[in-house]
């Protein structure tokens, strides 16, 4: 087993100051590690802070507290970030949910995909650049006719493929995907998930997948962390979490996931969890190997 850490987040905090009476604590002490070649899933309901985690790791917002380490470098520190700028820009990439907003509508697909290569000055030769573009396009399942098209001319699934090709162009070691398939149809969703899985196996990059759809997480991830109100509630290997959830919130969440099976669904009882009375203070405690759960006196036995 290769257990080299590529991304490590320690006690990360992100507070948004609104006014003197109100500060929104979007992330309130989140810690996890992503190992090399691992697919790490981050799940949570709306407003639990999962997208904010992704953005804070990428440095889009400066963190209020806590540390982010990428390959052992503390990148939340501006000085260290600047020293390692080239490495970070090349090896850490993000894919957003809304590909229509993420791609510049005034650039062609070819320009969009090669832009990171040109900016990072990885390939300067024109022919080489064209070869790279064509191999990237075929890798994500698009043909060369797409090169001259604009993002508005292609469908949502194809746009997401372009976004993936762009992010793969620099051969990153870590890809963060923030709800990459949430806005796609079931059959297209399956195509994109297969694509992710194939690329991840071929290239072996680490993958931090953020999603609200538990069935996708269950399908693709090695390890899962569940977020709730800016805290991690439970962190475990995927199989362990789905078979043996410990926290009542996660038990209720799992029971609410609809299963496409009418007779099973109709007889299923939902477990209720009172969100208002939820206690989110306490510490993450390791209960079995690799299985952490947020512990406080009232909730977990």
């Amino acid at each position, binding site marked *: 087993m290769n257990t080299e850490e590529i991304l490590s987040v320690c006690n990360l905090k992100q507070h948004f100051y609104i006014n003197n009476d109100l500060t929104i604590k979007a992330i309130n002490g989140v810690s996890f590690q992503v190992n090399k070649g691992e697919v790490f899933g981050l799940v949570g309901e709306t407003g639990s802070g999962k997208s904010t985690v992704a953005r804070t790791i990428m440095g889009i917002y400066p963190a209020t507290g806590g540390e982010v380490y990428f390959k052992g470098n503390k990148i939340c520190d501006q000085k260290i970030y600047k020293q390692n700028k080239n490495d970070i820009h090349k090896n850490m990439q993000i894919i957003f949910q809304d590909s229509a907003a993420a791609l510049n509508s005034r650039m062609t697909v070819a320009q969009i995909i090669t832009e990171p290569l040109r900016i990072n000055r990885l390939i300067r030769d024109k022919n080489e650049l064209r070869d790279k573009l064509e191999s990237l396009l075929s890798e994500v399942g698009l043909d060369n006719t797409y090169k001259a098209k604009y993002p508005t001319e292609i469908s949502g699934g194809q746009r997401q493929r372009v976004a993936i090709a762009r992010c793969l162009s620099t051969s990153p070691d870590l890809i963060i995907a923030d709800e990459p398939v949430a806005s796609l149809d079931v059959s297209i969703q399956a195509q994109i998930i297969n694509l992710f899985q194939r690329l991840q196996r071929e290239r072996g990059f680490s993958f931090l997948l953020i999603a609200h759809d538990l069935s996708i997480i269950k399908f693709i991830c090695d390890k899962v962390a569940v977020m709730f109100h800016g805290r991690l509630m439970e962190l475990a290997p995927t199989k362990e979490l789905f078979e043996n959830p410990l926290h009542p919130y996660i038990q209720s969440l799992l029971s*609410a996931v609809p299963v496409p099976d009418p007779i099973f669904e109709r007889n299923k009882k939902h477990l209720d969890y009172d969100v208002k009375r939820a206690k989110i203070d306490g510490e993450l405690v390791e209960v079995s190997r690799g299985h952490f759960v947020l512990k406080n006196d009232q909730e977990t036995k």
Partner: protein
Amino acid sequence: MTEPVLQLINLSVSFDTPNGEVEAVRDVSLSLNEGEILALVGESGCGKTVMSQSVLKLLPKTSRIKQGRIIVDGEDITNYKEKQMRKLRGGVLSMVFQDPMTTLNPTIPIGKQITESILKHNKVNREQAKKRALEMLNLVGIENSEQMFSLQPHFFSGGMRQRCVLAIALASNPKVLFADEATTALDVTVQAKIIDLLIDIRDRIGISIVFISHDLGAVARIADRVAVMYAGKIVEIGTAEEVYYDPRHPYVWGLMSALPSLTKAGENLSSIPGMPPVMLSPPPGDAFAVRNEFALAIDYEEMPPMFQISPTHSAATWLLDERAPSIAPPISLEKRAKA
């Protein structure tokens, strides 16, 4: 058997665009019985929303009903004028949309928004309307309805807002409720509660519901009958058990096996190759043929008719013709039928 509350007979709806005619709904026939929940499933752009909005006549002026009839409660409403429709909307037919925040007026208290529709459709005074509105809030499971009555929508969470929208939709005792992706924007836990609420309301007041969704999981819980749409046509319709455990159309096979929850981790997710067709010039034969690995030669030439499998179950695919070779559905589905 009683008469169906809603009946569509060979309905086709088209849009006139500068590039030509877009055939959004093509020759759809279905009926909805009293107290029944019918789910309409399909990918985006397959015509499920256009179909339901054509019943309520909410479509823009570029659209027209090309052929067919819409019968609501025994009355043909195909050629109803706007004035006549206004009585039906909210009265007999009601609709709940995907995003509760855009449905509700953010500046008007919830209570006032509910009484508005009651006053419009019933001959009642303000006091009676308020009483009815409070009843509705209780029905949709909002506690402290007296206090909530005077609050604006931004005080409520997404699930509560959707409950308020439901209260408005149900306020004047409609016969048919259209729920257009009503639970899609909500979290799974909230979605589960709203679905249970819809079932509970159906059991209590006997309303018929058309539940439009692309989530096969949510549909499995709520639906009595399921209709799967593709490229403007219903390709398969039957009871939930029939469609889920014994699907006959290759598109439905594809949809089911594309679900991650039915596939073992580590295995490849089977996906349907290609894209849904553009409805500007739909292909002459089965629109799904080009994406269908089991397509026969005739699929490219002639539209398949609806083949009856049982009194409640029918599907439009040439594979059901007696001359067609018999093809076993993909293995992943068989496994589940046994489990």
